[in-house]
């Protein structure tokens, strides 16, 4: 029953997206929706490693930007269809995730965190120096004025992002609820004990970093086409990096729907808030909320609800 409920939900979400695309005229809705869904994919991706396995990736913005720039480079090279660009960007970022993981995951978890953080900075200087994709000046992408089946290009981008995020959510849910999910959780709880209980820890961690990388690359690949102009500063945006961690932390990292809740909530608030106040204040608020949640509500909103439900149940006895 539970399984079919999830898939009904997925179909409903998709249908709602298409209905919205059919009726809504306000283009801002699609812009805002795209940004929220982009954050959602990043949050789900981060959580596959950070939440399920307990390994922190600080280089989210790096993976995102590599995805975006892979798409740009391929677009310059040959005008491939967007879907092909997304697939290739996913593969490239997955391989980078695998490589970083392979070099650092045999050591303590913190080395992986540091390596990803440093990696994002290095890729920023690499891309700043790479003239083929515009260097520090950035690159423009000309998007078609008309697209088949959709009223506008942005509408198509929104639906594309919706489909991608539903796929990512489904993958993340599958990972957490399968046998592998229990293996990942055992690594998070106690890696030494997990290994002795027959869990192939290194292999599971590498799968997890690869999936994380693929998802982040997929989130980043359509970005240049969405904004039509990209430079290293906008691709390696501070807000992307902090959101990818804050959203799962605020929603709750232990379950697959935690980052979804966090991303929808934080993303929507941010879309409302950036219209009215500055983006700096926005980052400040996200940072402060992140600190408050990790210190006071380590299991996020999901955890708060679980505690609340338990208290009521016990109170009602």
């Amino acid at each position: 029953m539970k399984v079919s409920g999830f898939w009904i939900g997925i179909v409903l979400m998709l249908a709602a997206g298409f209905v919205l695309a059919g009726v809504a005229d306000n283009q801002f809705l699609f812009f805002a929706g795209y940004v929220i869904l982009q954050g959602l994919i990043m949050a789900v991706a981060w959580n596959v490693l950070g939440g399920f396995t307990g390994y922190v990736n600080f280089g989210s913005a790096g993976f995102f930007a590599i995805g975006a720039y892979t798409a740009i480079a391929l677009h310059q090279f040959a005008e491939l269809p967007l879907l092909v660009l997304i697939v290739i960007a996913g593969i490239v970022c997955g391989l980078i995730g695998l490589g970083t993981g392979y070099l650092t995951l045999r050591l303590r978890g913190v080395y992986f965190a540091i390596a990803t953080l440093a990696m994002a900075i290095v890729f920023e200087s690499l891309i700043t120096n790479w003239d083929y994709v515009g260097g520090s000046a950035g690159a423009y992408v000309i998007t078609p004025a008309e697209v088949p089946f959709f009223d506008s290009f942005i509408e198509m981008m929104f639906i594309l992002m919706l489909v991608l995020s539903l796929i990512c959510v489904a993958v993340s849910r599958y990972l957490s609820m399968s046998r592998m999910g229990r293996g990942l959780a055992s690594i998070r709880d106690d890696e030494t004990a997990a290994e002795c209980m027959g869990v192939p820890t290194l292999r599971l961690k590498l799968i997890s970093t690869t999936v994380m990388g693929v998802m982040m690359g997929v989130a980043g690949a359509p970005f240049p086409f969405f904004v039509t102009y990209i430079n290293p500063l906008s691709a390696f945006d501070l807000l992307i990096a902090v959101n990818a961690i804050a959203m799962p932390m605020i929603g709750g990292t232990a379950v697959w729907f935690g980052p979804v809740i966090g991303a929808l909530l934080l993303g929507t608030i941010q879309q409302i808030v950036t219209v009215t106040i500055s983006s700096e204040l926005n980052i400040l608020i996200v940072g402060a909320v992140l600190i408050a949640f990790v210190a006071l509500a380590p299991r996020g909103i999901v955890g708060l609800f679980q505690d609340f439900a338990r208290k009521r149940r016990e109170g009602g006895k």
Partner: protein
Amino acid sequence: MDASLFLNAIAAGILLGGFYAAVALGLSIVFGQLDIVNIAHPAFIVAGSYLVFALNGGFGLDPVIAGILLMPIFFAVGVLVYRVYYAAFERTGRESLAGLAFFFGLMFVIEVLFIIFYGVDYRLVEADYIGKQIEIGLVGIPWRMLVPFCAALVMTGAIYLFLSRTFLGRAILAVSQDRLALQLMGADPVKIKQIAFGIGIATAALAGALLIMIGPVEPTIGRLYIGRIFAIIVLGGMGSIPGTLVAALIIGLSESIVTTYIGPSWAPTVAFGFLLITLAVRPQGLFGRL
């Protein structure tokens, strides 16, 4: 090869390396000895730069003096941060994931506060000697590099003597290695760690002063130092003070050579290369124990 170019690159690299030692020193204690992954350390350094900038602009204080004056305040802030960290994470054994996220959030809050107050423009400090240089043969040594180099060496030496010669210093070294022995000595590990963390943050005040002497500073410049600092600490062998100094000199020299012969925008990749190679080949670092 142009001898003057080469010699100047070497001299600049050594001076830069000394400065890097000051930048990495605090985290070398905090990460290497206490095992606390304070990735907000560079943000504290930038905070030091901005406060030195304020003191320098407001009262005309020499940046080094201003940095030293700020150290006690930074020490107190460090103690406070450690108390929060201890209460929320270390005591409950959740330090790995949540603790990292805590410092990550802290880094953003500090950076953005300075963006809000000072904007994203670059800031500079004034002093008589900044802008002048000494000529020794073919080599020109600018004062704005020499003063930070000397200040960094003095601070590194002082920390080394403190850790190896005083009771408190040895207790700090013991805290990471043998908690039990420490408790038998009658020292409270939490108090010791709190002091050590405070010292680590205090070094950020002076490092911040040196940072803004070497070049102009903007609020997120600290990020450029995260990779360098961790590369230095890992290369130096996690918490070894002489190791930190040697590793800082190696990275400073390599960056200077890369800057001179390849281009300044490639310099940040040097540290990352060292970090990855060290992790892959010799994770215990040059001076380290596993």
